[in-house]
């Protein structure tokens, strides 16, 4: 692992320890009250979910067109993170919606397209695990569709009639709510970078293991 990894991991742990205090100090939203504070972890995890899908898609495209195994390892790692952050998004969202909207789930464009993106990430992992020979390229094709879904998820709230808050909410946040949100966002972004690096390292070690077995066979 690189030298920068452990200091950054320590900083990230301190940041995650401080985030709840900033979130607690932020004002209550006028209509939703306490439950709106789920937003401070929901939105950053959703952003990391979309970022993971983009990283996975770009790396998969480079793997498909250039055949770089390094890009394939990066795509595999990013797909796993898309499943992780997607799960966080799809669990915290309904917990918030239950109080704010009165229902756990609505077949809204934003929610449905997010669920589709998460299922594509799952499909990528399942193809990689059970697809047999050639599954890496098949999964890379799936990742392209996963990436194509990302802009659709993002703009859906602005173009379709939906009950999900629009993207225009974030720039209009008052100072204390904005500080809590962007601090949480920084926490999740750093965590994403660290987890991606660890997960890529795991794939590198697996590749090394394969090459060791091959060298033993020869």
């Amino acid at each position, binding site marked *: 692992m690189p030298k920068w990894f452990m200091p950054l991991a320590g900083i990230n742990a301190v940041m995650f320890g401080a985030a*709840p205090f900033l979130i607690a100090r932020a004002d209550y939203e006028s209509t939703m*009250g*306490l*439950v709106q*504070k*789920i937003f401070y*972890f*929901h939105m950053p*995890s959703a952003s990391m979910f979309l970022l993971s899908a983009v990283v996975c898609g770009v790396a998969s495209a480079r793997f498909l067109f250039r055949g770089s195994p390094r890009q394939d390892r990066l795509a595999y790692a990013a797909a796993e993170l898309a499943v*992780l952050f997607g*799960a*966080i998004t799809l*669990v*915290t969202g309904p*917990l*918030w919606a*239950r*109080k704010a*909207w*009165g229902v756990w789930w609505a077949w809204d464009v934003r929610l449905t397209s997010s669920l589709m993106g998460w299922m594509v990430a799952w499909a990528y992992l399942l193809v990689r695990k059970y697809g047999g020979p050639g599954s890496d390229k098949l999964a890379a094709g799936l990742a392209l569709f996963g990436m194509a879904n990302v802009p659709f998820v993002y703009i859906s709230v602005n173009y379709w009639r939906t009950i999900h808050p629009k993207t225009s909410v974030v720039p209009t946040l008052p100072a204390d709510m904005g500080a809590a949100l962007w601090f949480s966002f920084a926490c999740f972004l750093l*965590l994403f970078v660290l*987890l991606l690096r*660890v*997960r890529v*390292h*795991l794939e590198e*070690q*697996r590749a*090394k*293991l394969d090459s*060791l*077995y091959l*060298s*033993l066979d020869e």
Partner: protein
Amino acid sequence: MRLSQTRATETRRQGALLALLLIVLVSAPAVVPACAAESRGDGAASQQPQPQPQPGPPAATDEFVPISQLPAQDQLPAAPLLVTAYAFVWLALFGYLLSVGRRLGKVQREVDRLESDIAKGTRT
């Protein structure tokens, strides 16, 4: 003659009674509501404009509404949902870290074992 005078007197009496009865019947719809209003205490004085009530302290609560009678959305306490959401985030992240650490440790041990085997020139 006397008989005819008696009949005429009786006829006039009956006519007077009928006239009285007609007067009572015609005037009753107008008189009865007025009497009823008089008995309720909102007679002619109540026709005058009432002074506007002055704003005062809020009225005392005369009934408690159980929370079960509110709409389902308003009955939900927010705290358990918030705690569940944050607990899930922490559990998911720690669970994933543990999973990656365990997988990495397993692969690392196997790599170390193979490297030492190759160094010794044997395979176990």
